């Protein structure tokens, strides 16, 4: 027994290390970006997600297609290499815009070079649309604004390690470094006397001036902050981007910044070269020394990105679903026990991922839609395990895996929407309320989904196979118990939400869509319990009602976020909206099957 458990744990860890490490040290460099310290890899992923809604870049190298890692792509872009300009990374779905930019209709991804000649006209339009009221924008105007934002983000990357002239950044930087003392001297002379006699001097001062202006532009445009103040590296407000750091060389007491020196040198080499590796190693040790534990969190995040445990958990859950289905067909006990241990392994991976996220963020498990998906699955699985422990019907791991796989697939898609570890908006920045209100309301979601799944299982099982009344009775008891669980947590969660709202906006209840969504779950669960009490529904009726609960919960979780979605938004929200509608239809179909497959309550009487 113990051996098996150990084996399964070993198996799940071996999965983690099967993915190849191709780190050159670049991926885990800490960067202050979007308000938080994160590994270079996360920045690269975020930039790519923002412009192409995926992280994979495929590049044609010598007529061969080659996958480029996000970090390598970003490094190429910020050091002004030619290739990224030809990578097809701009996602444009709107046919009107494609037509306008004379792009082919078939593709959705285009390179910067393909769009660049229309840059001015796009930006001009976007500037006009920005003046308009947000609600009055039509789909085309919205999409132009989106494209303009993508272009702005991409162009802002050119202000990191680019010289904006023929020379390489390293040459540019070394010239500048050598030039600073003389330039400052000339500047002081000019300032005190008002003129420079020598023409060469004047030229030099002019050049110096040019540098100054250049770096001012750099510092305004770049959002990648690589450079801590070496005296107080953990004060993130003092971190600088390249432009600002170059400007600091004008301070006479300033000598040089070791990280800037290293990175400037690194711009000359290919990321795969040994020189690059040793420079990165050196840089990493500087960061490590100055940041201490903060560096460890950055490295953890890099690990989380690379060995995404949720993906492996997802694979396992899908595998378990298949194994369980086989098990129900052939009733092989060995198959069941394998699927059981695999399920524990998958859950362990799931838990590791969740734990790492909490550790990196220093926050409760749910901070955004992405993490709510992961957490809903996680809680649902625990509940399913408990059920299995009590009732031993050999459906717990099957149900758990379905819940796990669905929620992780949802999370996977959500991860291409924004930074999943993003900073909280001001009003949400409260660990107390996040860990009380958000967690309890999510527990309620988990409960209703689990009950809905058990209901679905009941309906389909009785449809395909004549099941025993004993199993039915116990399923009924399970579902009833879970409904009580969800009513309790969704009520408490909703109330805590009201109290939070009272604390931050001065009203307990405002009939806002998200509040209403939560209330609907509470009401629906109350309706189910009272219908059962009144004898309006019995076994099958209760099952049908909990399946409808799936729809109610999905509306509350996702639907209310989509209320404002128009019909032609060509984006994630539209496909998510379609998925939601599709899901609701499947639930209705199951309800219909349940209603059709036999006079429900007679069996019981």
């Amino acid at each position: 027994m113990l051996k098996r458990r150990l084996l399964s744990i070993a198996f799940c860890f071996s999965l983690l290390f099967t993915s190849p490490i191709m780190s050159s040290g670049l991926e885990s460099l800490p960067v202050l970006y979007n308000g938080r310290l994160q590994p270079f890899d996360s920045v690269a992923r975020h930039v790519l997600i923002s412009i192409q809604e995926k992280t994979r870049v495929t590049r044609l190298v010598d007529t061969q297609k080659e996958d480029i890692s996000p970090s390598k792509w970003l490094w190429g872009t910020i050091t002004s290499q030619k290739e990224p300009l030809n990578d097809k990374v701009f996602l444009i779905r709107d046919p009107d815009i494609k037509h306008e930019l004379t792009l082919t209709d078939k593709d959705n991804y285009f390179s910067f070079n393909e769009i660049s000649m229309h840059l001015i006209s796009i930006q001009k339009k976007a500037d006009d649309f920005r003046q308009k009221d947000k609600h009055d924008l039509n789909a085309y105007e919205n999409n132009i604004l989106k494209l303009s934002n993508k272009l702005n983000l991409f162009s802002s990357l050119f202000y990191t390690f680019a010289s904006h002239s023929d020379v390489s950044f390293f040459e540019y930087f070394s010239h500048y470094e050598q030039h600073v003392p003389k330039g400052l001297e000339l500047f002081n002379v000019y300032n005190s006397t008002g003129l420079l006699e020598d023409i060469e001097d004047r030229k030099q001062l002019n050049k110096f001036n040019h540098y100054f202006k250049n770096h001012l532009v750099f510092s305004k445009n770049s959002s990648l902050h690589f450079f801590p103040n070496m005296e107080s590296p953990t004060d993130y407000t003092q971190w600088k981007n390249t432009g600002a750091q170059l400007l600091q060389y004008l301070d006479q007491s300033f000598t040089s910044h070791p990280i800037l020196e290293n990175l400037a040198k690194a711009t000359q080499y290919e990321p795969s070269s040994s020189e690059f590796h040793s420079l990165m190693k050196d840089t990493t040790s500087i960061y490590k020394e100055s940041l201490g534990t903060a560096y460890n969190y950055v490295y953890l995040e890099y690990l989380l990105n690379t060995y995404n445990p949720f993906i492996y958990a997802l694979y396992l859950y899908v595998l378990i679903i298949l194994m369980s289905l086989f098990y129900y067909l052939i009733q092989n006990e060995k198959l069941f026990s394998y699927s059981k241990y695999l399920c524990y392994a998958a859950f362990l991976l799931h838990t590791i991922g969740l734990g790492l996220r909490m550790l990196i963020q220093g926050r409760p498990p749910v901070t955004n839609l992405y993490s709510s998906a992961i957490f809903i699955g996680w809680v649902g699985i625990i509940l399913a395990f408990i059920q299995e422990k009590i009732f031993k019907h050999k459906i717990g791991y099957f149900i758990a895996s379905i819940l796990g796989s669905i929620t992780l697939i949802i999370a996977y898609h959500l991860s291409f929407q924004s930074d999943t570890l993003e900073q909280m908006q001001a009003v949400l920045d409260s660990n107390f309320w996040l860990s009380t209100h958000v967690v309890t309301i999510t527990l309620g979601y988990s409960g209703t989904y689990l009950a809905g799944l058990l209901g679905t299982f009941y309906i389909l099982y009785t449809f395909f196979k004549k099941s025993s009344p004993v199993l039915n009775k116990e399923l009924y008891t399970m579902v009833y118990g879970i409904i009580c669980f969800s009513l309790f947590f969704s009520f408490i969660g909703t109330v805590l939400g009201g109290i939070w709202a009272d604390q931050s906006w001065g009203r307990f209840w405002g009939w806002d869509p998200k509040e209403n969504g939560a209330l609907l779950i509470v009401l629906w669960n109350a309706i189910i319990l009272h219908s059962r009490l009144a004898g309006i529904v019995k076994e099958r009726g209760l099952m049908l009602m909990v399946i409808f609960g799936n729809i109610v919960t999905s509306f509350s979780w996702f639907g209310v976020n989509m209320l404002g979605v128009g019909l032609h938004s060509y984006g994630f929200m539209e496909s998510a909206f379609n998925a939601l509608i599709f899901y609701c239809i499947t639930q209705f179909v199951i309800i219909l099957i349940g209603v059709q497959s036999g006079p429900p309550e007679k069996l019981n009487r």
Partner: protein
Amino acid sequence: MTLLWRFILFLSSLKFGLFSLSCFFIIVLVGTFAQIEHGIFYTQKVYFHSLFIMIPFRDIHIPVFPGGGLVGSLMVLNIVGATCFKIQWTRKKIGLVFVHLGLIVLLLGGGLASCVSYESQVYMEEGDSTYFANDLHHNELVIIDPSFPRYDKIYAIPIKDLISGQTISDDTLPFEIHVHEQFDNVLLSLSEIPNKAISKGVGTGLTITSIPEFTQDDKKNNEGAIISIHHENKDYGRYVVALDIDGYQEIHINNTIYYIQVRPRRVYFPFMMTLKTFTQELYPGSNIPKAYSSLVSIRDFKMGSERDVLIYMNHPYRQDNLTFFQASFGKEEPSSILQVVRNPLWLIPYISCIIISLGLLLHFSIYLLAFLKRRKNA
């Protein structure tokens, strides 16, 4: 059994409770979808606070479904009845009793609060002082009598009390006001041709068009009216008054000048509030706001004492049933927008929710323990 008793039993029945729960479910659902088109304030009025949900058909409004107000009241009656007559007050069901008692308090408190509470806002730039906030949803017609040396005398009439065709007269008012036409929302535009319907004030140069009410939250209805002023059987002219008209219009009666204006209802504080500094903190290296806070000083009118208070996200300031929240900030100057809510019943949801949560916990624990015991024995 008398008819009344049977009616009471019907009201307290589980089936009736289910019916009202289901109605409430539908109202919440429909009211949520309505927010695709309309603002929250409008949907609250039409769906959640109303007795009936009305749908306009030609010129009349037809009730199509019970509104939140009605269903809420029915639910209270149902729960009261059920708690008194239906639920057994036994040790096993004591949790349920708590839940339903808590629900009564919650629903009653919520209903009352929606009647007595109101929301208002203060916009202050750094250094500004104020002693009142503007109600966002209620406007009033004010008449200012400046003829007193140390203060102005102000008469305020809720704009909703101006009803077309009626005359407002009261011994305390300095003159009578006859309302010719009242507008829920009116469009005023400059016109070259003098408006003959108006004889005094800025209205003589305006075209007045009544337009439908806005239902979105970000558009404000320009409430107004065409009124004429009468005093001792003499006509002192016909004016148009509206929220959008900035400044005061003058009325001259027997050497006295009165000023009239439509403005948001004011919520007065018993103190003077000054915004000392407004701070907006961003996450480093980004434009994501991390926190806003307003440092205000509060000078009490009665006590004369002065103290500083820091109001920030999730940390409101409460005094005299008024609660001040950091709501937003102005774009240009360092300025702060505080939401001011007067809700004397703010504690009720807290209390009722504690009762209900305890009740649920108690009830489900009793049943869970019994269930586990049964399984163990089986």
